[in-house]
């Protein structure tokens, strides 16, 4: 082509190219940072995002990018090898563990609670939910807010005769695991018809994506009920009710109740996979749970391995200090001790 054409073409390309190159290098830090990718549970997302932020400020060359796609996603992506570690509030099943080429270790991080949050016209106070009420609502056998099963536990509260809008998770979720684990213990009907898992065949209800999605739906939909992690209800000012525990008492989810539930645990198994829903004890909150980081026992990249081990050590010591500020309970001392020893299993 002619000289002129070539030159104009060249000029035309140079400017956008420069712009793009600028964009591409934007944010590149001096001395390339170590990038760890993680994904999983939305249940502990608020505390994890705080931890990773604080840890990054203290160790500027380590970036832990955590995406809250749900516990099911965390397990799946860990098994597929696309993330460096995962997170889940439903411990991996033996089947799932068998699918992994490397051994996967569970590390409890915090204790949290699933709460029944609701948005009922005219009701501003706390409702009491019996175990039968919650399982009935989610089975679809209890359909109105003024059903006797709900009303009898809440004398004096003016419950409307409106249909209950049930909200559950549309994605694979550890929060669902905790909730359905509890319902399976509370109701044989539920156990036989639906069962427990990160993704179940829900008899009724709308699906929201992540704890975020369920909270959003409950907040915007009148006469709805949804199960979310405690901090989501607190941060968004969504009312939540008391739940009847194994001892028959109505307990509101808080740090004391969750710690009591964990305290009733006699022995923590070696692999840390345990359920503390429906725990005995008058003060125990019945829908409490540990949540775990899923770490491969063999990590070939030495830099990543050291970073993960260092983060775990930090998490068990300094990290725990942030828990209560975000309404998660601290791990019991005995568990912390056991975990510290288990860190050495990561090779």
């Amino acid at each position, binding site marked *: 082509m002619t000289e002129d054409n070539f030159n104009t073409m060249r000029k035309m390309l140079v400017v956008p190219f420069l712009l793009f190159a600028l964009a591409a290098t934007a944010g590149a830090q001096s001395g390339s940072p170590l990038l760890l990718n993680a*994904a999983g549970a939305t249940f502990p997302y608020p505390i994890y995002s705080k931890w990773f932020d604080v840890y990054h400020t203290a160790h500027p060359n380590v970036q832990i990018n955590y995406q809250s*796609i*749900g*516990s*099911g*996603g*965390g*397990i*799946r*992506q860990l*098994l597929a090898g696309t993330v460096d570690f995962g997170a889940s509030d439903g411990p991996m099943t033996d089947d*799932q563990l068998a699918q992994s080429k490397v051994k996967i270790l569970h590390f409890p991080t915090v204790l949290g609670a699933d709460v029944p949050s609701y948005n009922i016209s005219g009701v501003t106070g706390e409702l009491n939910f019996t175990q039968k009420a919650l399982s009935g609502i989610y089975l679809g056998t209890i359909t109105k807010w003024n059903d006797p099963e709900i009303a009898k536990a809440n004398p004096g509260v003016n419950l409307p005769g409106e*249909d209950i*809008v049930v909200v559950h998770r*549309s*994605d*694979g979720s550890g929060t669902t695991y905790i909730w359905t684990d509890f319902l399976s213990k509370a109701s044989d009907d539920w156990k036989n018809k*639906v*069962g427990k*898992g*990160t*993704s*179940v*065949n*829900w008899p009724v*209800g*709308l*699906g*929201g*994506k992540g704890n975020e999605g369920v909270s959003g*739906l409950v907040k*915007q*939909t*009148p006469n*709805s009920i949804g199960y979310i992690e405690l901090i989501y209800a607190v941060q968004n000012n969504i009312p939540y009710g008391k739940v009847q525990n194994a001892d028959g008492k109505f307990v509101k989810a808080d740090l004391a109740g969750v710690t009591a539930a964990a305290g009733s645990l006699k022995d923590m198994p070696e692999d840390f996979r345990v359920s503390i829903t429906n725990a005995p004890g008058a003060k125990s909150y019945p829908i409490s749970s540990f949540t775990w980081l899923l770490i491969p026992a063999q990590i070939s990249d030495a830099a990543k391995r050291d970073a993960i081990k260092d983060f775990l050590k930090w998490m068990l010591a300094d990290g725990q200090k942030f828990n209560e500020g975000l309404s998660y309970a601290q791990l019991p001392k005995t568990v912390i001790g056991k975990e510290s020893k288990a860190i050495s299993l990561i090779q």
Partner: protein
Amino acid sequence: MSTSATTMDRAAPRRFDGGGPRAFLHRLGHGDEVAHVLTLTFAAGILLLTSGLVYELWVNSHLSRAKFGWLFFWTRTWDPIFDNFGAAPFIYGTLVTSIVSLVIAVPLGLAAAIFLSELAPRRMSDTISFLIDLLAAVPSVIYGLLGIFIVVPLMRTTVGPILIGSLGHVPVLGKFFKGPNYGVGFLTAGVVLAIMVVPFIISVSREVLLTVPREQREAALALGATRWEATWKVVVPWARTGILGSVFLALARALGETMAVTMVIGNDPKIAASLFAPGYTIAAVIANEFTEATGDLYLSALIELGLVLFLMTFILNGLARLLIVATERGGGHPS
């Protein structure tokens, strides 16, 4: 003279437009063959890419196809715990939301297209068309955003109660308008989809209507038809295959729409008569569950859903293309 002898010897031109490897190599040197082969390779690359796509979909859905067979299409459960998967609720949801969107968008779109092609002065028509084409370019996640914060509350507080109140008790139609109204659901998703596809219908229909020969209109008017009669009874039927093509195009777009739908449909894999019930579509369930399908059968079932969606849009797009091309070639015959 020796020079003239040599020039004469060299005078006979060597021919390279024949066959043979030497001739090919010479043409190669001129670059034409290179250009031909180069561009051909890229074009063939598209074939490779598309067949690769279909191949991947087919192969990766193997587990699910083997286990469920044709039953997959009408099984209504979607149960990851007991490993029982069926496509029925998603096919239902995809079809219902798309049909609802067409029921809303086609009359409106066609009417608008008629206005723009027949009535509006040329400049107004061009400006409005320009604006409508812009709307076709708006990303779907933005429609989802608007859906969540405008359409859903509107549906829940205003439109829903009006519809339930007025149509809920009508004999046959009533069962589509019953029941609890959450704001999210089939109807909301259909409305959001309608907003998204109406620009396509207007744009293509207008183009097609503009190709109808003047003689047709003038003949009708000469025979004493009113303007409306001429338009509705002569012009539109002439263009009807093209308009149908635009409808199919819109339908194909609606079927594959993911983000806007998953934000407003309620994400519940159930088949329900009421339009206010929450539902699920193929695209939405893949978006929600793909990254977390634990278990190979689960993932395979999701990919099989993707294959089903691909086939649906493939057939529709093929039909749409045929119809539009047929009309553009002046083949519109009111028969």
